[in-house]
């Protein structure tokens, strides 16, 4: 099963600062996703990325969020101006329904 590496594992940032969360899948994939999980709550879909463009995004994924694959391997999630409520665990995932999905170990973002 392909592995997905996320960096950093934990990031603390000041409110209003920009953060970039990174995801590196070991093998080539077409579908990428970001999910988040606020402490004690369920995992929520943020955005799906297919063929180098956003294929679907949730209501959470507003103008403060962006995704890209800057060098064809890394897959990043950027939050332009963090808010306290952005504190959560962020998971990157790869895969497709009929093949299954693999999640990274997550980045815990703490906004202070």
């Amino acid at each position, binding site marked *: 099963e392909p592995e997905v590496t996320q960096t950093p594992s934990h990031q603390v940032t000041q409110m209003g600062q920009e953060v970039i969360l990174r995801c590196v899948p070991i093998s080539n994939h077409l*579908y990428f*996703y970001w*999910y988040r999980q606020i402490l004690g*709550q*369920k*995992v*929520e*879909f943020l955005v*799906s990325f*297919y063929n180098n463009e956003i*294929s*679907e995004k949730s209501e959470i994924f507003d103008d403060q969020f962006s995704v890209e694959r800057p060098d064809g391997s890394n897959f990043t999630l950027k939050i332009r101006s963090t808010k306290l409520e952005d504190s959560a665990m962020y*998971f990157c*995932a790869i*895969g*497709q*329904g*009929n093949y*299954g*999905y*693999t*999640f*990274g*170990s*997550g980045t*815990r973002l703490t906004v202070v």
Partner: protein
Amino acid sequence: AQSVTQPDIHITVSEGASLELRCNYSYGATPYLFWYVQSPGQGLQLLLKYFSGDTLVQGIKGFEAEFKRSQSSFNLRKPSVHWSDAAEYFCAVAAQGGSEKLVFGKGTKLTVNP
């Protein structure tokens, strides 16, 4: 849109007892169905998945799940629970042929008593 309901927020069982975690989904056709497990502070580990075919699927760690189309359910079972099974369990669905995103239930926290 798909939705997933896990009616039990918290379940406590004794070690060695059997376990069933409930999951109901709402979707117009047969979705892809998954169960994930999450230990505190950890990522999501896939236990098992259902795409088509045999409605009873086997997963890792001795878990199995049964897809029942008539009940829109995909319940997770284990005949004998071990203390190491204590974790949070999430049921998830993805639409076949539609959006590839996963929709998760709210999770069931499992506590195992010695």
